[in-house]
């Protein structure tokens, strides 16, 4: 275990930024906390919960994936090395989840994996939930991680206590900004974990909601009542750290075409509409149901793990109060 003084975070990141693109939570005009390239906003040391998760680094809102010319078709792969500082345990868990999805059945998404392989992750565990919509514990995630990160930091006041979770993490700890820790740090980490577990009181009841779905309790009327409020903006999907559906389209570019992909949302009617015009999910309620069945039912069948990490971003973003928390609450009333 080593220590990283909070005063040293920014100098450390600046050094790292010389060899890889550093991302960290930064404030924009004092209002929005956004995970963005170092220097584009204001780093204040308070990490909180960013509006959009680290998904945006690995799977940007829109990206070029192929270029077409009459004589040549070529894949566009961006393999810029990145270092992402200050992501939360829930986000890291979402990345692990997405990694599995993007390599499932040996069908590898080359655009995602090229970035993923060059990404270094520095997770900062939560002492307290950064917002009152956090429910990671209830969702079966945790405010800190046991594995799967490069580096994990615990907030001990003026400094972070750092533990490595990979060879890359060990390499980072060798950097001179990290100082030797003391024996008591180990106990301190245990105290922080205990505090983290005891301070999160938001328990919407994900397990019971999963059971309700397993038992097919919600009927059409249940979903219809919720979907009546949905304005079909797709915001919950865009901010979700595990949602990675995309739309593909071609735009003309210098005598050829470039194929792009951009975030898509299963709540839009066109998402499942077939060429014939037939739509297997023709109504807003059937799409809303499908989205939450995916997270809380099918993901459990496929991966033995829910697709929701309890970050609460959908509940933060939804303009009509229809995030995962509200859906879980409603399922619990069945």
């Amino acid at each position: 275990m080593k220590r990283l003084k909070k005063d040293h975070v920014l100098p450390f990141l600046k050094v790292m930024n010389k060899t890889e693109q550093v991302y960290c939570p930064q404030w924009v005009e004092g209002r929005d906390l956004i995970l963005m390239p170092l220097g584009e906003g204001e780093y204040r040391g308070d990490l909180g919960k960013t509006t959009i998760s680290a998904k945006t680094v690995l799977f940007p809102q829109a990206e070029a994936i192929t270029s077409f010319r009459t004589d040549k078709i070529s894949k566009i792969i961006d393999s810029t090395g990145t270092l992402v500082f200050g992501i939360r345990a829930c986000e890291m868990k979402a990345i692990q989840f997405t990694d599995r999805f993007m390599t499932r059945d040996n069908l590898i998404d080359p655009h995602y994996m090229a970035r993923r392989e060059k990404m270094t992750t520095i997770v900062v565990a939560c002492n307290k939930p950064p917002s009152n919509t956090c429910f990671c514990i209830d969702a079966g995630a945790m405010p800190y991680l046991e594995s799967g990160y490069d580096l994990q930091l615990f907030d001990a006041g003026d400094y972070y206590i750092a533990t490595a979770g990979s060879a890359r993490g060990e390499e980072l700890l060798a950097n001179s900004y990290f100082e030797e820790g003391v024996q008591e740090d180990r106990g301190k980490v245990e105290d922080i974990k205990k505090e983290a577990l005891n301070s999160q009181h938001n328990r919407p009841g994900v397990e019971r909601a999963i059971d309700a779905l397993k038992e097919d309790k919600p009927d059409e009327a249940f979903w219809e009542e919720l979907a009546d409020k949905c304005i079909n903006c797709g915001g919950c999907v865009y901010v979700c750290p595990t949602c990675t559906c995309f739309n593909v389209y071609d735009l003309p570019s210098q005598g050829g075409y470039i194929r792009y992909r951009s975030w898509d949302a299963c709540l839009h009617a066109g998402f499942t509409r077939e060429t014939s015009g037939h739509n297997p999910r023709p109504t807003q309620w059937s799409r809303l149901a499908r989205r939450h069945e995916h997270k809380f039912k099918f993901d459990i069948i496929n991966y033995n793990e829910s697709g929701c990490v309890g970050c609460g971003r959908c509940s933060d973003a939804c303009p009509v109060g229809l995030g995962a928390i509200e859906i879980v609450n409603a399922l619990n009333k069945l």
Partner: protein
Amino acid sequence: MAGLAAAFGSGAMTNSVQEFEEAEVFFVIGSNTTEQHPLIASRIIRAVTQRDAKLIVADPRDIKLARFAAVHLKHRIGSDVALLNGLMHIILKEGWEDKQFIKARTENFEQLKTVVAKYTPDRVTEITGVDRDSLRKGAEIYARAKKAMIAYAMGITQHITGTDNVISCANLAMLTGHVGYPSTGVNPLRGQNNVQGACDMGALPNVYSGYQPVTDPECRQKFENEWNVTGLSDKIGLTVTEMIDAAERGEVKALYIMGENPVVSDPDANHVARALRKLDLLVVQDIFPTETTKLAHVILPAASFAEKMGTYTNTERRVQLSRQAIEPLEGTEQDWKIICEISSRAGYPMNYHSAVEILDEINRVTPSYAGITHDRLENSWGLCWPCPNKDHPGTPFLHKARFTRGLGLFHAKEYIPPAEPPDEEYPFTLTTGRMSFQFHTGTMTRRIPILGREAPKAILEMNPRDARRLRVRDGSMVAIESRRGELHLPVMTTLDLPEGVVFSTFHYSEKNINELTICAIDPVAKIPEFKSCAVSIRRI
């Protein structure tokens, strides 16, 4: 807007969006709120489903909101005045009017009473097609609530009787005392993010900013002083529809269009294109090529919202700051800089250095905007006008204790049928509108692939019974013809429409429904009757 100005003295939403959360009753007329103002609609739905607020919907279509309505008044297109008079008739007959409010805060009530007396339920049922029970139920729910809000949109205004329709809404609100208090009022939901702001800034033929009339010598003097000029015109100019007509007649020689695409968005589009071709000079300032720039002699490439700083004034009169995110793309310029440059070259040097400096001037010359300064906007979510000084908190709802014009003015209106009712030759009524995935003529939204996927092409919606009679089904092509043009569109059947009415949107320039619509206009506001014209339909 003219209607509300006449009744209350101020042409804007009387109350604010937040107040929808507290209302007991909503009367939504001529607004497909879930499609066009979804956040307001979600407040209405929440109120109805979670705290037993009541909703009255008046709309010829089975819009989504109708499912939540305690009563759905499915009146015939263009019969709004008759419907509203009919409701007022019942209210007066039952004694549900607010006598104290009428006495203390309004004038000309007797005239209203005389006219409304003629709109008996039987007669109203005949004109509107709405049954007596529904009329009574609607009247009772609205009149007997403590806090009831009227919300309307283009279904009210886009008729030859647009101003009459608005005035009738205002009459109904005053009759029942539902104006001048929180969660009440007459609330036009504006169709664009800044149409309120454009009107506030005097982008109208008759006023300077803040509705200061050009005919008022004091107002003129004030602007002459501010701009250091003399002889500002005291003549009221032309509205858009009048300019197009004048261009066709050869009376208007040059037109400078900013951020508008009238070749697609205005009624009787072939006539618009013909008129614009007659101009000696057409200048179009826009961010993308459009059907209108194709006819322009000069195109001025403007910067988009992300490339400039400024303010927008939304439907609830809230002025909000919009910050510049990126530099203007190469070859484009911010609108205010283009205007300054044109003005300077035309002989009146405009020397503004920033958007902030322009807002400073707005603050100086516009009483309702005097306190809406850049500093305050920077540190808030915006301010609702009127905001007369720097310490004023803004005004969420208007006409508290006193109407802007003093007393509220009742102005009785008689029912006038649409300009072009269906007949044997053109037996269907065509009504037009928008959907949430496209915006207006699509010059921006149709460049976004995912929106194109959601709403890819123009379709003609019709009742399945009409489709059966025409021997067409979903996806069949039909020729739809009016006295002004013909268009081929695929059919989509829907029970949302009554028989005899077909619906389409004006988002698709390659299938421009406005080639069919009629350029019959409201005599006061000069808004065209987009909501009704006669068409024939045949299978092809």
